[in-house]
């Protein structure tokens, strides 16, 4: 557990919680990334505009942080190429079919004590843990 970073994880998590709380307090909406994203194509113009600004902020946040410390943007991908594309397809379909991801179900849904979100969160975490265990056993993890 030498990579464990409980303090920055908790503080970062609180900022994510603050974001979700603010979006509900101001716009009355759940800060679920897949929900906000999935609504983009069919949303009427005014509903689309604020969602796009949310994503502008979401992308600008890390860039601002990288001005403070450059290595905030150093990210490593355990897999690449076709496997990564397959993962992207599964995440895209899965989050729309299951109506939420780590933010919508994991943070916002659990905070409302939604049984649906608690079940979804346990399910995708279990599927993720099993997948990584298989990857590790197959030698796909460095």
């Amino acid at each position, binding site marked *: 557990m030498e990579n464990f970073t409980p303090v920055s*994880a*908790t503080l*970062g*998590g609180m900022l*994510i919680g603050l974001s979700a*709380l603010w979006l*509900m*307090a101001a*716009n009355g909406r*759940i800060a679920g990334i*897949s*929900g906000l994203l*999935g609504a*983009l194509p069919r949303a009427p113009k005014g509903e689309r*505009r*604020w969602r796009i*600004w949310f994503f502008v902020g*979401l*992308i*600008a*946040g*890390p860039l*601002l*942080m*990288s001005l403070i410390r450059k290595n905030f943007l150093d*990210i490593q*991908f*355990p*897999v690449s*190429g076709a496997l990564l*594309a*397959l993962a*992207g*397809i*599964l*995440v*895209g*379909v*899965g*989050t729309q079919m*299951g*109506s*939420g*991801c*780590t933010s*919508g179900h994991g*943070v916002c*849904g*659990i*905070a*409302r004590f939604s049984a*649906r979100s608690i*079940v*979804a969160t346990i399910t995708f975490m279990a*599927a993720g*843990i099993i*997948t*990584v265990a298989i*990857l590790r056993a197959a030698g796909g*993890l460095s």
Partner: protein
Amino acid sequence: MSRSFSALIAGLLFGIGLTLSAMLNPAKVIGFLDLFGNWDPSLAFVMGGALLVTIPGYFVLRKKEKPLLETQFFWPEATQIDAKLIGGAVLFGIGWGLSGLCPGPAISGIGALNVNSFIFLGAMLVSAFGYRVYASGNQGIEKL
């Protein structure tokens, strides 16, 4: 204040939170899912930190009549635990485990200009929007 400006603030807070907690980094997320390897519990603390704010915050907002900039709260109404919920969560979990990426970090991290970010995001957008088109007709614009 406009709804766009408030959404920009929410997006910034979310992106800064992902960066500070290092959840932007797929390798860090894999560390959490690697329960039987070199386990890194950090992600649980990210969720815990977020819930520390959202649980009491939502509790207070639940009692309010309407938000600052809207005529009503859009609290999710779905309650059914069905095959779509479970199936979707399984597919998402497999993709999450393969890549270490969920939708937030996948979008938030593209400023790193890593080619892998674009491969994942492109595939995710095509399949997410593709599913929405396929499933359209019986969905409202906001359904968690």
